């Protein structure tokens, strides 16, 4: 007889199973007959069903599944965010693939596999699962980055990422091995016990092992000393992949680090706090400074991703001392995702065919053709800057309150300086939509700007705008929602 409790436990894996089934179905579909639209629809609907299945999961009491994973509210929340960003990536990639790619359907396959990995990292409760999740996310990315393989830059980026990512994975593995050598168990619960009993800080093997594990996470998050791959890879990747990198892959790495630091209290130590603070400060400030002189928009987005990771790391730094840091992270992520979706919807509208995408990417006819697009872009950028009435302001308010409350004055100064520097390029990005005479005449003839947006893309950017404004003007909605979810 099937054990009922076991069944409920397995229910938690439903989103994972659904995405897995979608992978198989898509494989079969591709091998039978290639149809781009069908593949896209299949992927999106699989991801949607998986998203809906999250409602079935009992989150009241956290429970572990097969030692490897733990299902709780946080996990479900982050899975939802990841599925959402996968869906949006699929939607935006459709038109790009239609115009640029030879092989179209494999893109969705890779995204689905990465999503599998992302869900695993959100559930992770064991270092083995962590490794599986992280690898499942980064392996498909090799393909996604090099998807535009006719182009040398794309191939170069792919090879760069492959080598560096493999190195970081070996770091992770090495760290895990060291931890195992000392503790003899890889479960987070045991590791937690080791740190609570205070032996963790005095054992060189544990410290070195944990450092290696964290270093590989920091690499995936592209934080400052380990950021060198980011701008190059972003520049070489196709636009949908850049979106995927800056939303999904960042989320996955971040969730892994978050769970690590939630369950293993290494951040209650002053020294580790200091190191994390230093990393986030240099990421924010130097990332912003280096972004100042970029003329390629994808490269710019790479540097912005470093800066955003820096902001996210500040929340992790205070996770053991501040009671609201989880809320801050959630609000920050939501506002970041919405604004990023929005900006990429603009990019995919106007840059789909641009090879060397220029900074000011917009068309000269934007003002005439679509007033709405200009307004949308303005709102997205204002939200990232953190102007009141947008969701970005709420997240800035939360972030600053948290850091001030913890008395991390260095972080406060870094946040302020970073956001002042970042004004320069965000404003340039925003003004890009207003500026005229960007493209020469022959570009118009090839029709690269008058790429028609699909209705779905417009709907996504419209929804983002609505949510940014709605939640920005009435933040109590999102605060109440998060109180309920988290």
């Amino acid at each position, binding site marked *: 007889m099937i054990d009922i409790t076991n069944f409920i436990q397995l229910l938690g894996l439903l989103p994972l199973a659904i995405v897995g089934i979608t992978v198989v179905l898509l494989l079969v579909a591709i091998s039978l007959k290639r149809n781009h639209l069908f593949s896209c629809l299949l992927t999106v609907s699989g991801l949607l069903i998986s998203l809906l299945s999250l409602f079935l999961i009992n989150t009241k009491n956290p429970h572990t599944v097969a030692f490897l994973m733990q299902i709780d509210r946080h996990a479900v929340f982050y899975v939802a965010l990841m599925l959402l960003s996968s869906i949006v990536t699929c939607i935006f990639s459709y038109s790009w693939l239609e115009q640029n790619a030879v092989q179209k359907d494999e893109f969705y396959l890779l995204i689905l596999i990465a999503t599998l990995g992302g869900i695993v990292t959100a559930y992770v409760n064991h270092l083995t699962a962590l490794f599986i999740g992280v690898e499942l996310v980064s392996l498909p990315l090799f393909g996604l980055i090099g998807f535009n393989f006719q182009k040398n830059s794309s191939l170069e980026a792919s090879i760069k990422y492959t080598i560096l990512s493999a190195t970081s994975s070996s770091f992770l593995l090495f760290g895990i091995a060291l931890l195992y050598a000392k503790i003899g168990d890889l479960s987070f619960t045991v590791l937690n016990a080791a740190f609570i009993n205070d032996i963790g800080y005095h054992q060189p093997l544990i410290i070195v092992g944990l450092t290696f594990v964290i270093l590989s996470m920091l690499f995936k998050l592209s934080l400052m000393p380990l950021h060198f791959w980011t701008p190059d890879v972003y520049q070489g990747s196709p636009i949908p992949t850049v979106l995927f990198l800056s939303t999904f892959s960042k989320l996955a790495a971040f969730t892994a680090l978050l769970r690590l630091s939630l369950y293993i209290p290494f951040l209650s130590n002053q020294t580790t706090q200091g190191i994390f603070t230093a990393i986030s400060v240099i990421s924010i400030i130097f990332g912003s400074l280096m972004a100042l002189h970029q003329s390629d928009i994808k490269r710019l987005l790479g540097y912005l991703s470093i800066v955003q990771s820096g902001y996210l790391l500040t929340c992790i730094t205070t996770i053991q001392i501040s009671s609201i840091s989880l809320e801050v992270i959630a609000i920050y992520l939501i506002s970041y995702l919405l604004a990023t979706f929005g900006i990429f919807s603009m990019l995919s509208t106007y840059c789909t065919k641009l090879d060397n995408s220029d900074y000011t990417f917009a068309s000269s006819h934007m003002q005439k053709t679509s007033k709405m697009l200009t307004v949308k872009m303005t709102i997205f950028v204002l939200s990232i800057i953190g102007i*009141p*009435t947008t969701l970005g302001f709420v997240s800035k308010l939360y972030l600053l309150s948290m850091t*001030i409350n913890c008395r991390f004055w260095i972080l406060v100064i870094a946040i302020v300086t970073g956001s002042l520097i970042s004004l320069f390029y965000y404003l340039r990005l925003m003004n890009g939509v207003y500026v005229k005479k960007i493209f020469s005449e022959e570009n118009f003839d090839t029709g690269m700007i008058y790429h028609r947006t699909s209705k779905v893309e417009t709907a996504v950017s419209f929804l983002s705008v609505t949510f940014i404004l709605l939640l920005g003007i009435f933040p*109590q909605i999102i605060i109440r929602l998060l109180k309920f979810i988290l």
Partner: protein
Amino acid sequence: MSLILLILIPYTSAILSWKSKDIYSRWIAVTAVFTTLLISLINWLTLNEKVKFICPWIPQFNINIYLSMDGLSLTMVSLVGIIGTIAVFCSWNESRKNLFYANILWIIGSIIGIFLATDMLLFFFFWEIMSIPMYLIIYFWGYEGKGKSTSKLHRSATVFFLYTQASGLLLLIATISLVLVHYNVTHNLTFDYIELSKTSMSYRTEFFLMLTFFAAFSIKMPLVPLHKWVVNTHFYTPNSGAADLVGLVIKTAPYAILRFLLVFFPHTITFFSSVAMCLGLVNIFYGAYMVFNQNDIKKLIAYSSICHAGFILISIYTSNLISYQGLVIQIVASSLSTTGLILIASQLYKKLDSRNINEISNIWGQIRWLPATTIFFFLATLGVPGTGNFLGEFLILLGCYQTHPIFSYIATFSLITVTIYAVSAINKTCFGISNKRLISSSGKYLELSLCEGTLIFSLVFFIIALGIFPQIILETTEGPIFNILTSIEHL
């Protein structure tokens, strides 16, 4: 109820005018500013009741939409009404009207919000939101300068935004810190001005919080090392005269210092007042010195308003009733006279196609009414008796003499420097070498249109009325100023 209308009308009509056609948008704007002005005038009649509006906004953090109006706010709001009306009328023929008017109304709404907000987060909200339309106005409608590319204009818009953002971020940090300090003492999370003003804290905390607030406000004020954005903004804003809103934007800072900074951190005043007064003196003399070197009439206006800011700062730190009353008069009068000069500058530019003071010369007798009013407004800025400016400066110096006589002595000397620049500007524009431009310009008699004339003469009227009958403002603002003073002195 009337308070929320004062804010809602500009905002909603901003959206309306943005969405409507060019022809309707200006009428929407006109109706909006007139209604705002009317509502604020109605409030003059029912002054004795303290008007309030409270409605919860973010209940989790106890943040409310809390507006209240006393005599001081009322004076400022009416000033916004008057200058806003002028801004709408004098940009009657701007290109892309609908968006332009939307921006202007948005600025007006935000400034009114700043003067009414009693909740600190709401105050910050308006403080921050004001910069976007200003940025857009400079960016799209700005004056590029002769033979210069737009890139300079765009850079100056960015610099403007940078300064205001720096000010906004400092203000946000200071507000959050103050609220958290209050929360740690009383375990009551609130952004309410009255609650926060009772916060008790150590002297060190108080001092650092005060410095953060002061830094935030001094950017907007502007104090001298941080004044560059005002000069740029004055220079690059459109010539039509909508720039008079800049004059209002910088008047929000002294209001904020008077209303918030002094009341929140009363213990620091005795120590900090001499520092602030020194800064004020630097402002006055630096502004006056810079005015001598300016050829561009808009830059001249900008530096003279920096000069006024110095006077205002000195008077804020005197903690003296007479001086504070002079301060209110000075704020109103200098806004009006700056507006007048901006209008004159826009008229001169329109007629003569130049803003260079050396090229505009000998206009006396050439354009009907314009030279006379030019002289009037220059004399008003230097504070000739009979104008509001004279009264303001006089009361400030008088009040300052009672508490800080030395600063009063030094500040008095500025009257001489101000006179020099005003007189030399009058000389250059109205008299001087005969003007080739006027003669060559198509031979027809240049005249002010009815609308332009009415605007300029109504300003003349207001300034003189303020100088002769200041009693109405003095009486209105006496109560709130007295409240501020008692809260400072009852430590």
